[in-house]
C-alpha cells in the first residue's frame, strides 16, 4: 500500500475523456514522477488529488483516508502540500511573512482569531521561519518583498513554504517550467537535498526529462489520460511505448 492510492479515476470534460481509469500508487518516502506529453492529463490528475477537481468516478486515498469532496485547505491540513507551475506566493508580503504563514497554518489549523500573540510565541514562529529560510539560503532576503524576486527565488520560497508545514506528501507541478537553466539546476539541487535529507514523499509532474531522471525513483508515463507504464527510470528510458508516446515513433 502506498501513501497515495489512486484507483480507477475517470474525469470527463464534455466530450473529452481527460482521465480514463487511472491507477496510481505512490510509495512512502519515494520520489514518484508522472510524465507524459502535452494533454496527457497530468495536471487534471494533480487537480483531482488536491481538491480542485472532483473525479467523475474512482477513489483517491491519502494515508487510508479519502480526499474526495474535501476542500483544498482541508486536504492540505491532511498533509499534502502543493507547488504550482507558476510560483504562487504572497507577493505583497515580505519573505519572512511568507514563511510565517504556513507555520501558523500548521500550528493553528484552518482558522484562528489570533489577534494577540505573546512575544515568546511570536519569536518561536519567527525562529522557525528563519531556520527554514537558512536552509534555503534565503535568510538575507527576509525583508524583501517577494514580488520583486526572480522566478528561481520565488520557486525556492514556495517549496520552502510547503516544507515548513512538514507535509507527508509534496506535489510539484512542473517545478522548473519557464526557468532559466541556472535556476532549473538550483531547483533540482534543492529537491535532491530535500529527497535525501527529509522523510517526505514527493510526487512530481514534469516535462523536462533532465529534471525527471535526476530526481525520480519511480516513473509513471501518462498518455491520453491513461497510464502507459510504470517503472524505474532506467527501464522507462528505453521503453518502446514511451518513445512512441513522446516521439510518435512506430514500433
Amino acid at each position: 500500500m502506498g501513501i497515495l492510492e489512486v484507483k480507477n479515476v475517470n474525469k470527463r470534460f464534455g466530450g473529452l475523456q481527460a482521465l480514463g481509469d487511472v491507477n496510481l500508487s505512490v510509495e512512502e518516502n519515494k520520489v514518484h514522477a508522472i510524465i507524459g506529453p502535452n494533454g496527457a492529463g497530468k495536471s487534471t490528475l494533480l487537480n483531482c488529488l488536491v481538491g480542485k477537481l472532483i473525479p467523475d468516478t474512482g477513489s483517491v486515498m491519502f494515508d487510508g483516508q479519502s480526499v474526495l469532496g474535501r476542500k483544498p485547505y482541508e486536504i492540505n491540513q491532511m498533509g499534502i502540500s502543493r507547488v504550482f507551475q507558476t510560483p504562487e506566493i504572497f507577493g505583497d508580503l515580505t519573505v519572512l511573512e511568507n514563511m510565517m504563514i504556513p507555520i501558523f497554518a500548521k500550528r493553528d489549523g484552518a482558522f484562528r482569531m489570533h489577534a494577540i500573540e505573546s512575544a515568546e510565541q511570536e519569536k518561536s514562529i519567527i525562529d522557525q521561519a528563519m531556520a527554514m529560510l537558512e536552509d534555503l539560503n534565503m535568510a538575507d532576503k527576509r525583508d524583501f518583498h517577494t514580488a520583486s524576486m526572480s522566478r528561481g527565488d520565488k520557486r525556492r520560497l514556495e517549496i520552502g513554504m510547503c516544507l515548513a508545514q512538514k507535509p507527508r506528501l509534496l506535489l510539484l507541478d512542473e517545478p522548473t517550467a519557464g526557468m532559466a537553466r541556472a535556476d532549473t539546476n538550483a531547483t533540482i539541487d534543492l529537491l535532491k537535498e530535500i529527497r535525501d535529507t527529509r522523510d517526505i514523499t514527493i510526487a512530481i509532474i514534469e516535462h523536462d526529462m533532465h529534471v525527471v531522471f535526476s530526481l525520480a525513483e519511480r516513473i509513471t508515463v501518462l498518455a491520453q489520460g491513461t497510464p502507459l507504464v510504470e517503472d524505474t527510470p532506467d527501464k522507462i528510458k528505453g521503453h518502446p511505448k514511451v518513445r512512441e508516446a513522446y516521439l510518435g515513433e512506430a514500433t
Partner: protein
Amino acid sequence: MLGLNSKDFRLLLLVAALALLAPFILNPFPADSAMAQFNAGYPDLMQRFVIFGVFAIGFNILFGLTGYLSFGHAAFLGVGSYSAVWMFKLLSMNVIPAILLAVITAGLFALLIGYISLRRSGIYFAILTLAFAQMSYALAYSVLTPVTGGETGLQLALDDPRVLGAAQSAQGNIPVPGLFGLEMRDAAQLNLGDWVFTFSAGYYFSAVVMLIAFYLSIRIFRSPFGMMLRAVKSNQQRLNYTGLNARPYTLAAFVISGMYAGLAGGLMAAMDPLAGAERMFWTASGEVVLMAILGGVGTLIGPVLGAGLIKYMENIISKINADILHSWFAFLPDGLEDFIVSIMYPFIGKGWHLTLGIIFMAVVIFLPGGLVEGGQRIARLFRRRKSGEAAKDDDAKQSTVAE
C-alpha cells in the same frame, strides 16, 4: 509600549496629540478675520472629523487588509445610529450603553450580510453589499417606520419610557445624552486675544473613542490575524493550498469593520440624538470608500486623513459663496475680478463635489497610495536632501506595506 513597536507608538502619540490639540490646530485664524471661515475648530465639525475617522479606520480593516471592497458599509452606520437612539429612548441618556448596543447590533447585522455577501468576491461582492445596504435603506425609509421613524427619522420624545432616567429634564425639556453627568453638548470657551477656542465634551469623548479604535486597528494590522488578512488580499490560491480557510478570516474582518461603522453611528447619535435613513444611503457608503482611497488604502493613518479632508471640504468649501469670492479678489480691476470669480464659482458652494472630484482624480493618478504616499514622498525628499545618497539605499529597502 502598549504592545506596539516604537514606530507605531510614535504614530499613535502623534494622532493623540493632534486629536487633543485639534481645537487649537484647526483654529489658526482670529475669530473675526476674513480667513475665519477656514477655521474648522468648532465642535460640530471636529466631531465629524473623528467620527468619520472611526468609520474609515474600520472600513480600512476590511478594504485595506483583505481587499474586499464593500459598497454598503453605511448600512452598519445607520443600524448603529438607530440602536443608540433606541437605547436613549428606552434605557438611559448615558452614551456608554447606547454605543455598546450600536456596536453589537451593527456586528450582528454585519455577520448576516457578510455571511451571504462573502460567498462572492470582487465586483459581485461589492454589488451584493450595495444591494443589502439599499435594501436596508428602503426598509428603514418605509416598511420599518415604527422602528426607524421612516421619513422623519428616529427622534427622542417627551414621553419616552426611559427606564433608568427621567423622561424629561427638570425644565420639562428632552434630556441630552451625557456621560455620568457630563453632557455631550457641554463646551468651554477660551479667548486668547482675537482667537476663540472651543473645547467640547462631545468632541473629546469622540476623540478618545477614536484613539482607542485607532489603537485597536494598529494591533489588528500588526497581529498574525492581520497578516492572514493581507495574505487573503495577496493570494487566495496560495492561502487555500497552505491549509487556511479564507472565508472565516474575511468574515471576521467584515464583522469587525461593521462594528467600527456601528461605533461611528452610535457616536453620531450620542452627539445629536437622532437617526435617519439617509445615513444608510449608497452615497454615504461611497463616501467612506473615497475617504480610504484618498487617504491611502491599507495604511494606518490614511483613512483618518481622508475622512478629515472630505469632511473639511464638505463643510468649509461648501460655505464659500460668490460674495466671498468677490471680496477676495476686490483688489483686481473689475473686469478681471468678475472673470476670475466666474471661473472659480463652479468649484465652491454647492460645487464642492467638483473640487473633491478633481482632487480625487489627481490623487488616484499621481498618488495611488493616497495622501500618505504624498507625505512619504515629501519626507523622502527632505531626507535625501539632508543625507544625500546614503538615504537612497535606505529607501529602497524600506517596506511600505501597511505603514
